[in-house]
C-alpha cells in the first residue's frame, strides 16, 4: 500500500532545493512520495492559519514558523538553512576593466540599486542594515522580493542589487558576498504541521549530512 504523499509548502526561493532534497531522500526511502506547493512565505502562512492541508512548511524566515507553533498550528519548528546576502553588479568593472570582488564594490557604488522590501522579505531586512549605514543619495528601488531584484538586474533595468546567493549560485561579474556578521541573519525555519510518520522522518532528515551538503550546494549556510 502506498502512503498518502507528504504535502510540502515551501517559500518560493527554496523550492528547487526542496525538490533536490526530496529526490535525494527518495533514494533511500522509496516509499516516500510528496507534493510541493510554493508561494510567498506570507501567503503560505495565511493559508496554513486557515487550515490548508500541508504537512511541512519551509518558511523563508524564522518568524512565521515560530508564530505557527505559538498559535498551535504547528507541532514544532527548527532552522534548516541560513541565507547568504550578495551585493551583485554583473556588468560592473573598475577603471582597469576588471570585475570588482568584495566590499570595495559596495563602498564605491554610487548608482541606483535595488533590494527587497524590508517590510516583506527577510533578505530585504538584511540589506536594510547595510543601506541604513550609508547616506544613499542615489535612487533606491524596492522590489517585492529578492527574485524581483534578480529580475530587475538581469533585464538591465538596474545595474546592481542585493540578491540571495541561492538565486544565483554561480556568481559572475562583480559581487560582494556580505559576511553574516554585517546584517541580521536570514534564518529560514521549517515547521512540522502534522505528525504523519513520513513528514516527521523527512523533518529529521534535514539535519543529516546528506541534506546539509545539498543545502550548501544551493547557496545557503547551515544553521
Amino acid at each position: 500500500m502506498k502512503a498518502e504523499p507528504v504535502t510540502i509548502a515551501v517559500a518560493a526561493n527554496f523550492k528547487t532545493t526542496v525538490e533536490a532534497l526530496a529526490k535525494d531522500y527518495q533514494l533511500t526511502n522509496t516509499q516516500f512520495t510528496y507534493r510541493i506547493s510554493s508561494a510567498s512565505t506570507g501567503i503560505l502562512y495565511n493559508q496554513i492559519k486557515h487550515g490548508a492541508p500541508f504537512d511541512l512548511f519551509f518558511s523563508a524566515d524564522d518568524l512565521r514558523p515560530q508564530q505557527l507553533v505559538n498559535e498551535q498550528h504547528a507541532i514544532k519548528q527548527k532552522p534548516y538553512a541560513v541565507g547568504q546576502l550578495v551585493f551583485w553588479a554583473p556588468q560592473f568593472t573598475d577603471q582597469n576593466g576588471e570585475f570588482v570582488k568584495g566590499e570595495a564594490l559596495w563602498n564605491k557604488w554610487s548608482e541606483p540599486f535595488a533590494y527587497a522590501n524590508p517590510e516583506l522579505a527577510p533578505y530585504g531586512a538584511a540589506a536594510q542594515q547595510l543601506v541604513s549605514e550609508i547616506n544613499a543619495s542615489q535612487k533606491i528601488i524596492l522590489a517585492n522580493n529578492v527574485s524581483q531584484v534578480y529580475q530587475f538586474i538581469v533585464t538591465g533595468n538596474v545595474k546592481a542589487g542585493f540578491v540571495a546567493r541561492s538565486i544565483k549560485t554561480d556568481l559572475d561579474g562583480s559581487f560582494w558576498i556580505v559576511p553574516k556578521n554585517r546584517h541580521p541573519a536570514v534564518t529560514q525555519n521549517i515547521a512540522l504541521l502534522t505528525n504523519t510518520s513520513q513528514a516527521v522522518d523527512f523533518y529529521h532528515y534535514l539535519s543529516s549530512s546528506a541534506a546539509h551538503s545539498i543545502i550548501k550546494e544551493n547557496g545557503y549556510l547551515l544553521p
Partner: protein
Amino acid sequence: MTDAEIQAIVLSIKLASLSCFILLLVGTPLAWWLARSERKIKHVIEAIVALPIVLPPTVLGFYLLISFAPNSIMGQWWLTLTGSQLAFSFSGLVFASCLYSLPFVVQPIQSAFKQIEPGVLDAAKVLRMPRWKQLLAVELPLAKNGFIVAMVLGFAHTLGEFGVVLMIGGNIPGETQVIAIALFDHVESLNFAAAHRLALVLLGFSFVALLLTYTFSASKKRVGSIGVKF
C-alpha cells in the same frame, strides 16, 4: 491616514489623470478610425487594443520590464530623449497605464461613434460642412456619453492598476508607490488596519465610477450600452 498613504493616493490620482488625458488624445482618433473604417486590418487593431482586458497584467509587466531596460531600443530612445530611465519612474508608469487602460478608453468611445445614426453623419456630409466641422460639431458632441464613460473607466482602471506597477514600479514613495501597491505592502506585512483604509478608498471610488458609468450609459436610449465589451 499617514503621510505615506496620502502620498500614495495623490500619486495614484496624478497617474490616473495624466494617463486619461494622454489616452483621450491618442484614443479618440484610434476609436474614430475603428468605428468608421471598413478595412480588414481594423479587426487586428481591435484585437490588439483589447488585449489588456484578457491578458494577465504580468504579461504586460514582463514585456515592459524587458523593453524598459536601458539597453533595449525603447529604453535607449527614452534615455537619450530625457536622460532618465523608464523603469521605476513615474513616466514609466504613465506609459504602462496608457497601454493597460487603452481598451477601457477606446472601446466606449468607439461604440459611441458607431452608434451615431449613419443618416445624421450623411446629413453633415451633404450640407457642405468641412471634415473638421463634421467632427467637431456633429460627431464629437453626439459621442459625448461615450467620452464620459471612457474617462471614468480609464481613470478608475488606472487607479486600481496593480500587477503591472508591481512588476515595473520598484515601490518608490512619491514616484511609483501607488495606492494599490501601498495596500499590498500593508496586507503582506499584516498591517490590516492600514490596508482597510486604503481598500475602502479604492472600493468607494470604484463603486462611484461604475455607478456613473451605468448612469451615463442608460441616460440616452439611442446611445444604448456604451460599456466595455468583455
